[in-house]
């Protein structure tokens, strides 16, 4: 069942307040497009590498949002160069994508390159995938905070994926 865009829009407005507040610490920039239910977010790695994330949130929160990285130099979406590389599969080369239950692109039922055919949308806010309690990552600020955690630490961030 689709979520009324007006409801999703209100959720986005409320959650973006938290994104802006927490984002001040990390120098995030946010550009919402409430008409299309999308948000562009800029983030920086510890060495000032710039990343751009496009969040598409139609049917949020019945379905998880879709996170896609955009190459800051070419504007290309979803290329390895647009993605960071970490020390585990959170930034996954399949797609590439953020491999987490909060990202629609990680679901094989949504995109062929999605690493997981064992996940279903309806479980995304209760998922215990990989023995991690993903119910702690159910707001946009939570999600972006987790991404930033991996960009901020030299021990985790290994530059661009491609």
């Amino acid at each position, binding site marked *: 069942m689709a979520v009324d865009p007006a409801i999703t829009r209100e959720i986005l407005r409320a959650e973006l307040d*938290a994104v802006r507040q927490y984002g001040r*610490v990390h120098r995030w920039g946010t550009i919402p497009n409430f008409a299309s239910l999308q948000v562009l977010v800029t983030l920086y790695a510890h060495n000032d590498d710039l990343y751009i994330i496009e969040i598409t949130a139609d049917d949020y929160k019945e379905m998880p949002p879709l996170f896609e990285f955009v190459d800051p130099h070419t504007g290309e979406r979803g290329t390895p160069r647009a993605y960071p590389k970490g020390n585990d599969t959170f930034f996954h080369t399949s797609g590439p994508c953020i491999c987490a239950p909060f990202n629609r692109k990680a679901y094989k039922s949504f995109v062929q390159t999605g690493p997981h055919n064992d996940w279903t949308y309806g479980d995304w806010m209760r998922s215990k995938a990989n023995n991690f309690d993903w119910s702690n990552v159910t707001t946009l600020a939570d999600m972006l905070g987790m991404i930033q955690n991996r960009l901020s630490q030299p021990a985790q961030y290994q530059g661009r994926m491609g």
Partner: protein
Amino acid sequence: MTTERAITITVETTRGTKTLTVEKTTKVGEVIAKVVALCGFNPGDRFDLFLKADLQNPLQPERPLVSYHIEDGAILVLSQVGSGV
């Protein structure tokens, strides 16, 4: 109330700004647990705590705040680690 042994710290989280007063000898891990509870997160998952002035190096959970020279009024940042799946 802040005393000689206690300090009031502010912690920025993805679920708002939390202020708490703790003993200087409180371990970082104990502060994390308090803030996680204040935020309504389920306990048990890994969180990092950073000094706002140093977001690259997480504070070690077993060390007391005083060992990082954290003073009254310090601003810290809570960050969720997550998992590669």
